[in-house]
């Protein structure tokens, strides 16, 4: 299978043994873009390059970063850049690698972004469990300060910026940008309401704030170095540049791959020897999650779809944060559905009613089915409760909740029940999965039979 090729932009130092050090970074071309920006470009020119690159945010929503930067109200200071490194969705682990393997690239991206935004303070919020990434970032930041890449009068210019590192305390919801801002302020990580709290207008400490994903900013040095036009020429016109996807599940070689955006297909990722090298045990795909646990599931008929934002959106799901989970033909769909719903129920912050009560209810109903106590009316009940969280159970989801966490628990149920209703019915009728699928719960029950 031949796959489209492209330059390695943000993973270029993954194979350099000392790529995470200042010396290794500078030796491999690091901090050139920053020098270029502060010495020969105006902030507006930097912003224009990012706009020209048409890079979509890599955090999940896929909103064009250059456009987002333009939302800051003119003349309101202080303003902040917040970097969301609280990557916590099941199957998502690209930002962690970027922070561990190439921390200086991220720092350079942050400083350039601050230059473009006229911000003098950035907050880098890293997930609490990522100890290695935290160490690497702290070391790198110290080196960057010592080398005058961060701090006062960067590279001899009159531009100064400070970066503050903050570690999370282990809450998935803090990946939601307004909850992250609350957490940064020292409050419980619970989302704010939009409106009125659009971060670009009323963000951190009620000041204008841009929240960007780690991968988005890691691309900025390349965009400034090579030009936005160069970046845009890679990938598809509707999904520019290279993009990282984290593939996990029933594939032979799970991992993170930087692929040309918008032109690579799911099948290529799963089957090409450069990437995952096929489904385990020579099996076949039964379903897969195209973009994180909150996405609607895809099925074999979607395998040849390109990893292109508008295409995937139109097909009723999303690329999200680039977490792809493959499920082969042996997967117990009821159990898979329950595992994902359980994640969201446990990670609900508890602020609003539908998510707090609804996700837990869904989880309990599914668990009851797995335990062999499902009732015929439970399938309808799952949809009814889902309807109370996400009216219409449509894509993109509508929500009665404050943030999208609640509707996230609805996607796996809607996907699994609609496609594999017979598996749920089988559980309800027989208290065990259909033949041919593996389920830890069924094994457990069988031993008691």
């Amino acid at each position, binding site marked *: 299978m031949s796959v489209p090729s492209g330059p390695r932009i943000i993973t270029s130092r993954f194979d350099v043994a000392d790529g995470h050090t200042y010396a290794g970074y500078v030796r491999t071309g690091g901090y050139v873009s920053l020098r270029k920006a502060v010495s020969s470009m105006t902030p507006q020119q930097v912003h224009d390059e990012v706009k020209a690159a048409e890079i979509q945010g890599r955090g999940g929503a896929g909103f064009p970063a250059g456009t987002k930067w333009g939302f800051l109200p003119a003349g309101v200071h202080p303003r902040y850049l917040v970097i969301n490194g609280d990557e916590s969705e099941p199957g998502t682990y690209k930002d962690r690698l970027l922070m561990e393997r190439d921390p200086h690239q991220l720092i350079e991206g942050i400083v350039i972004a601050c230059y473009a935004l006229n911000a003098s303070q950035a907050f880098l919020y890293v997930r609490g469990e990522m100890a290695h990434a935290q160490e690497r970032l702290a070391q790198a930041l110290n080196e960057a300060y010592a080398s005058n890449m961060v701090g006062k009068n960067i590279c001899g210019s009159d531009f100064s910026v400070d970066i503050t590192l903050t570690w999370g305390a282990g*809450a998935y919801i803090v990946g939601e940008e307004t909850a992250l801002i609350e957490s940064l302020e020292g409050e*419980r990580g619970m989302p704010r*309401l939009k*409106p009125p709290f659009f971060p670009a207008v009323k963000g951190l400490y009620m000041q204008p704030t841009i929240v960007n994903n780690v991968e988005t900013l890691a691309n900025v040095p390349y965009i400034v170095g090579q030009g936005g036009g160069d970046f845009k020429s890679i990938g598809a016109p509707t999904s520019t540049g290279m993009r990282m996807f984290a593939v996990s599940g029933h594939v032979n070689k799970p991992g993170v791959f930087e692929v040309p955006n918008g032109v690579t297909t799911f099948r290529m990722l799963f089957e090409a020897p450069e990437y995952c090298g096929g489904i385990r045990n020579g099996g076949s795909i039964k379903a897969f999650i195209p973009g994180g646990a909150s996405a609607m599931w895809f099925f074999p008929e979607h395998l040849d779809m390109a990893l292109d934002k508008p295409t995937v959106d139109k097909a009723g799901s999303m690329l999200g944060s680039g977490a792809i989970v493959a499920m082969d033909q042996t997967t117990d769909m009821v159990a898979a559905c329950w595992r994902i719903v359980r994640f969201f*129920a*446990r*990670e*609900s*912050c*508890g*602020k*609003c*009613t*539908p998510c*707090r*009560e*609804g*996700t*837990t*209810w869904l989880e*309990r*109903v599914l668990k*009851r089915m797995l335990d062999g106590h499902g009732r015929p*009316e439970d399938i309808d*009940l799952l949809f*009814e*409760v889902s*309807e*109370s*969280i996400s*009216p219409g159970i449509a894509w993109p989801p*509508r929500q*009665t*909740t*404050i943030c999208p966490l609640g509707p996230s628990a609805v996607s796996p149920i809607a996907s699994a029940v609609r496609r594999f209703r017979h598996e749920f019915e089988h559980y309800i009728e027989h208290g065990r999965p259909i033949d041919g699928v593996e389920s830890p719960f069924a094994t457990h029950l069988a031993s008691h039979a």
Partner: protein
Amino acid sequence: MTDTAAPKTTVSLTVDGRSVEATPGDLLITACERSGSFVPHFCYHPRMSPVGMCRQCIVEVEGPRGKSLVVSCMTPVADGQVVSTTSEPAKRAQEGVLELLLANHPLDCPVCDKGGECPLQDQAFSHGPGESRYVEEKRHYEKPIPISDLVFLDRERCILCDRCTRFAGEVAGDPLISFTSRGNNTQVMTFPDEPFSSYFSGNTVQICPVGALTSSAYRFKARPWDLEQVESTCTTCSVGCRTVVQSSRDELVRYQGVDVESVNWGWLCDRGRFNFESVNSRNRVHSPLMRKDGTLVETTWSTALDAAGRILRTVLNDKGPDAVSIIGGARGTNEDAFAWAQLADSLGVTARDAQLGDGLPAEVFALPQATIAEACASPTVILLAPDLKEELPVLYLRLRDAAEKRTTRIIEVSPRATGLSRYAWKSVRHDPGDQPRVVSELLSDRDVVDQLSRGNVTVVMGRGNLAESPEFTLLATGAVLAAVPTARVLPVVRRGNVRGAVTAGMTPQRPDADTNAILSSIAAGKVECLVLVGADPLSDVPDADLVRRAFASVKHVIAVDTFVTESVRHAEVVLPASAYGEKVGTTTNCEGRVSDVAQKITTAGTARPDWMIAAELALELGVDLGISSYPELRDTMTSSIAAFAPAADAKAVRGEGVLMAQSAPIRITATPRSAAPRLTHQFRLHVSRVMYDRAVATNESPSLAPLAREAAVHMNSGDAQRLGVRDGASVRLSSNGSAVVLPLAIDDAVARGVVSVPFNQHGSDIRQLIRHDVAVTDVVVEVI
């Protein structure tokens, strides 16, 4: 065509087919409710910032981008919005949220205090799906757990609406409760080892939309459908909060705050909320008492009135009217005070005072006046007052709110930090007696001058220190009024109806006839008969030595009271008075707002309202005051006292009440002066009240009585270090030839060089060191 350049002051929208006008910035939920469409809700409360957490108030809005479901408590109104509160999608969403709220709710309504007046119960019926499909096991917690001395929390009933926690942080400024845990295990909780000891905790019980928070005073006392209620005004302090007085089986069981814009916004302090218990106390005086062989024994009204009349007649005949004095009137209604003033007038008694040497000269009410609302709307408030959080708690809430909204800057000048200090723009400490100088200095500070030029200036002035002459605060106020001629004054006297009683005539009618002068005259043998009308000088007059000497030498005491207090014990005749909730009338708050107090229950025993006792006593003395009924009394009062004229209409004193008429304001002409500086080895004494003390209404309320603390000497840590004394050690304070021994409490709220002792607490009585004729009290502190 209208001029499009003019800013639009209203927007029009359609709610359920009716068109509604609203002000830009209004929330959709208020516009809907104004239009007559009730939107179910739990977390939304009009006096707190919206949080959109319960998600119950979802409505459907048609905008430029089609129809969408929005949370009406977080969505501002917009021109042309078409809103449906009852469309199928809106109803489906509302029912869905209610089913989810009920999923883990225990539905123990039959044993829940809230059942019958429960927003969750009511809205489950009106907007719920009718039945639950939840068959999983519900959440379980230990229930209920006390989170303070007054409040219990049942976490199973809690729907996590954030009302109590928001109130604690946002309104009261006591963020002592918060959410803990996450997701389905989220619960409201105090911090470890820190109870929810807020002075305002009762409000959380009132605003809880379920039965999760209950008060120790009301738990299991009544069912809502057995309650009778009437709107009234709290007279515990001079803020005059509007309340609802509720009774069951002719016994008071609960007070609830009523939201009036001009005063309390629905809030009450715990002292005012829970001291109804004292009305029900078994220790109330139920029938007249007369001294017989040294003890007070029950008697009949005719015997008691006859005896009281005989005493008064004898003294008046033998020594003339100056041998009779009357202290009191501030605990009753305006009409009570008026009747007693009429009686005094008819007898020629001029020595009468509603204040107990612990208030302010009556002329403060004649200074240019500001209302509470005007004070809170002033860009600058100068605080020359006691700790409002302790003494006028709901005024503290209002001023705190104004400061937090950044519309008001508070300049505080006090000998110790107060509840408002952390919200003050400037908070300056001073030695007692030095306030005029410190204020004059501040008035020439450039920042302050700038600030004072930004609009209205209100001086909130009161008796901040009972061990200091009130003259200094008066002079300091005069300094502000001289520097800012447009400044106005909000006098904050503590006792409920001081202002009404003074206006009604219970104030000295000649110089040197205030309470201190009366007591001095008694001690000098010039006054032989003292009439106490709801007054307890032995507990309340700061100069303990004076009042003790007076009571040791007084010949006759006639007391009208609800309890046998320290002072009443000395009476020959005790006439039982009706308490709050047992009589009708009007009261006047610190800003001069007259509002009604209502009768809810039958009076205890044969007790009578103060005014009736005055009228009866007058008849006994051969005087007809012309009062035979309450309406007659009120008509006489409002027609003969110009200030009360606006209260003539019975409707005017309901709800918001009505401001009394003001005559032309007087000016303070005295030149500011300060007391002599203290000697370096001495401390200057600050004595002030705290919320829970040995006041009779607190002491006789079982819920509140345990909250009164032991007295202690509060001293700055720097001074304590200098003296080498540790926290808790016993120290001797001596001054004016007297000494008291009290434990030391290290407290950096107190300025250096000052020691602060709370008034009327358990333990040694600090009043022994206070002399009414000594301007400031300097004390020597010795470690023992």
